[in-house]
């Protein structure tokens, strides 16, 4: 059962990504990408990493994609709607994908843990995850924090508005 679910979810993730990169309309592309992230989250859950699954949904599908949407709307990138054919054709793939996802999710949620396991299962609780992160990969965490600091410095520099007359900041 888990193997079947895995293949279905992989197909959804691949299909959604494929449709995502071929869309002309950036808003549609983002919607498909969200589907791909949901499918990935389910795969993580299937492998016994519920925390990573939750983060996949919260951070990628939630925060980052909302940011994407926000920027797309701000830049007014969306082309006019008439280019993508009649209504039902536009809705069909997204309905299929999200329908499959919902069914898979329900199956995962309500299936017995015994029957759901088909892959060699290692359950990574948030506690195990935290231990691994701060014990094994402590240096990696520190490097990432340094990196974020300097990426922020760079982003600030690149995005800074040029003043006409250079003045000392107050």
């Amino acid at each position, binding site marked *: 059962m888990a193997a079947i679910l895995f293949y279905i979810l992989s197909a959804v993730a691949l299909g959604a990504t494929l449709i995502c990169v071929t869309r002309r309309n950036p808003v549609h592309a983002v919607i498909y990408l969200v589907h791909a992230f949901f499918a990935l989250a389910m795969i993580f859950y299937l492998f016994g990493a519920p925390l990573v699954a939750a983060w996949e949904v919260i951070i990628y599908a939630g925060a980052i994609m909302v940011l994407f949407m926000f920027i797309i709307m701000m830049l007014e990138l969306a082309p006019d709607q008439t280019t993508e054919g009649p209504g039902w054709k536009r809705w069909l793939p997204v309905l299929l994908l999200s329908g499959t996802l919902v069914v898979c999710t329900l199956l995962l949620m309500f299936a017995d843990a015994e029957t759901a396991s088909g892959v060699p299962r290692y359950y990574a609780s948030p506690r195990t995850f935290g*231990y691994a992160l*701060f*014990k*094994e*990969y*402590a*240096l*990696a965490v520190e*490097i*990432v924090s*340094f*990196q974020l*600091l*300097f*990426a922020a*410095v*760079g982003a600030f*520099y*690149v995005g800074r508005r*040029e003043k006409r007359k*250079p*003045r*000392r900041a107050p």
Partner: protein
Amino acid sequence: MDNLMQIAMQNVNYGSIMPSLVLCIFGMALLLINVFLPRGKTTPASWIALIGLVVTAVFAARGWGDPQFGFAGHVALDKFASFSNIIFLFSAGLTILMSDEYLQREGYPIGEYYPLILFATAGAMWMASGTDMMTIFLGLEVLSISLYILAGMFRGQLRSNEAGLKYFLLGAFSTGFLVYGIALIYGVSGTTNVADIGMYLKSHPAMLGNPMTIAGMLLISVGFLFKIGAAPFHMWAPDVYQGAPTPITAFMSAGPKAAALVAFVRILILGLDGLQGDWTSLLWVLAVLTMTVGNIIAINQTNIKRMLAYSSISHAGYALVGLVAANQIGVSGILFYMLAYTFMNLGAFAVLVLAGKKGEENLTLEGFAGFGFKRPFLGVAMSIFLISLMGIPTTAGFAGKFYIFAGAIKAGYIWLAVLGVLNSAVSLYYYLRVMVYMYFKEPAEDYGWVTLHAGAVISIIISVVGVFYLGLIPGKVMEMARMALFF
């Protein structure tokens, strides 16, 4: 609480990351100090950055006889890392020395410039001392992100913007390959530790033929070869090198390239040792391709900065020859060659920094007509660096190439060495042409705008000394490079 103490205090050994830690501290302090410096004055910042590099050098050198390991085997300050760290420090130091006047001239006296160089150097150090895929990958990211910003530093110049954006997009793309490869290798071996991967593959020889292992090895190679700038992943190099600020181009051609090479060496020889047959045959072809493509396109260039960019591609090809050999002489030859290349290439770029006008439209072959007689010091220095880049005896370039090709011959790759020497002969043409323009053409102008700024002159002098020291008495440094090997 007990648990907390237990996990927080385990495996921490600051000695193993001391050099990069010092650089990060200096980088962050500089960010703060910049706030208090008057706008447009970056000279004090450059001196503080140089002091930071010297302090780091002390810590890096201290690890020479006293290897430090720490953070659950994620990082090792062994001799290999120490030697590489010295290469990075030289490239960062020479870059900072030539930068200050250049930034003033181009009208971008930016406070973020020096901290970013320090931080890029710290990233390179993490790559060299990383014994875990995660550390190496994160070091690479730290290095790359700093370089993306530095390449696009001149916001008002279209070329610089192009360089930054191009490097960013292609770099992010290639990083994807690298991570994919690491993930596949992790999937095979169940560990990200380089030495453990090697051990696993040794005890499970059946996994060597597994398509997942091969694919992982190939994807990791793609990621690193991109950073090294090897053909066919070299497309970004010329545009980025031409568009980026000249000192940054110099830095990119030496430090980061060396970092990617040494990390690549560690992964291939320590981790993917079992696949040596596969990656040597791959790198054999790519080394020849890289040398040839770089040299042949360089012949056609009229812009000297762009010419040096293509020549840097071909030099990456020579370094890969040492990796194909994968023996003591070859790999220590890579270390030696990267040090030699740092001196000769950064020296050449320092001359370009001084010779350029604002906007650098004059850095063409015609722009150098008669330069040697009008500006004798710079002319002679440039000639020395070009001769070294060609690989003429008594210079560092010759000694480096000699060791690398000797390693290849000893490992039985005679044809590879022959092709390498033939390629060096091709490169004579475009290096000599610059000298022909400098000495055998009528000067079109008197180069009155060229002023000898202290910083750039010091970096030229250090480079000249380095080129001759490594060229005339290479034995000592070569011996150290051989001691630095971990196999």
